[in-house]
């Protein structure tokens, strides 16, 4: 199996096929060079249907669905700012002061789909979709109506990452029990205190 089109051409093809969709190419610098396509969630379902139905592509097989957790990031930068400082004798002078500015970028949850075509014997196309944030708006459109095989894997991503797939026919936890409230594969998951190993180092 090999990649069907160069990623940039694939992006152009999808954007031509699905009006309004915005696709971003994510380069993969490793030797495998499996570049992926970041699709905006509003058009996720339409893009999926286009990829499945297009006569040249016929991506009829969704081999894998998984989740990725991207934490909130905080960047600090030093900025030189001019400030007027009052001296002890009452005079005001302008001085250059260094200030540390912190900018917070909200994190997001990402769903990754690997698509192949059984009919055309080609693939993969790697789709990514990102939620608006990691808490209240962790919603993505479900692609289970397009590829039935994604059902359990989307349930797993819901169970372990907390991505809510809108339009999924049966979105319940699949590995953990129903009363469980955490999302254990998130990077900020804290296991119960009794699970933590106590190691005492002899002096």
């Amino acid at each position, binding site marked *: 199996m090999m990649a069907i089109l160069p990623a940039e051409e694939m992006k152009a093809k999808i954007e031509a096929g699905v009006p309004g969709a915005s696709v971003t190419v994510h380069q993969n610098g490793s030797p495998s060079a499996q570049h992926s396509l970041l699709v905006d969630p509003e058009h996720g379902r339409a893009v999926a249907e286009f990829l499945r139905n297009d006569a040249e592509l016929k991506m009829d097989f969704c081999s894998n669905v998984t989740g990725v957790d991207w934490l909130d990031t905080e960047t600090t930068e030093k900025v030189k700012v001019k400030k007027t400082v009052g001296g002890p004798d009452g005079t005001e002078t302008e001085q250059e002061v260094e200030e540390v500015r912190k900018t917070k970028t909200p994190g997001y949850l990402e769903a990754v789909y690997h698509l192949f075509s059984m009919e055309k014997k080609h693939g993969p196309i790697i789709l990514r979709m990102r939620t608006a944030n990691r808490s209240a708006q962790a919603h993505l459109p479900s692609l289970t109506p397009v590829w039935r095989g994604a059902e359990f894997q989307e349930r797993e991503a819901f169970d372990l990452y907390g991505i809510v797939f809108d339009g999924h026919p049966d979105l319940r936890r699949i*590995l953990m029990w129903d009363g469980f*409230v*955490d999302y*254990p594969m998130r990077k900020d998951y804290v296991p119960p205190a009794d699970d933590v190993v106590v190691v005492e180092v002899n002096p």
Partner: protein
Amino acid sequence: MADDLKELKIELSKNGIFTTTLEELYNWGRKNSVWPLTFGLACCAIEMIATTMARYDLARFGAEVFRPSPRQADLIIVSGTVTKKMAPQVVRLYNQMPEPKYVIAMGACAISGGPFRDGYNVLKGIDRYIPVDVHIPGCPPRPEALIHAFMALQKKIDAQALTGESRPRHLHPDLPSEFPVPAFGEHGLEPPANPDVFPARADNPLKVLQ
């Protein structure tokens, strides 16, 4: 048994007279007919199966009859990773076994969670909920190790006194033969351990020393 009685017994056997005690006879029968439960959880179960087959032949120790029902079993070999979702079922199976009953925790996972100890879904040792008689380290332990554990269990059964304060649990009417089944909580199993079986953290003798 007192020493003079032992000497008398040896003396009698030299003259062709066989004597025994009820305790010895009872324990001899018990230790040579330990019936394990047909029960496996992970890769350790494959080693357990191998132990029962012709090459290692657990039947030599009277333990060839793996019972498909806990009601007929004397021994549960916890062979493999106990996930948190499976733990209540393991405790329930143990509760369904009639006394006297014994537990072998086979392999690193059953003892402590093993290589999955840091996982969110794995119980950190079955001894948190049921009393374990013999622990076998290994990942998985070889059949020889299971046989060794089995012989250790036989020695333990053989040494159990039937009277007195040190008699085993099944001869104490007040001691429980069933243990609380943990429930699925919001963050893990509730309770995280049975304090009657697993000592509290402050005076836990099982702390890891480096």
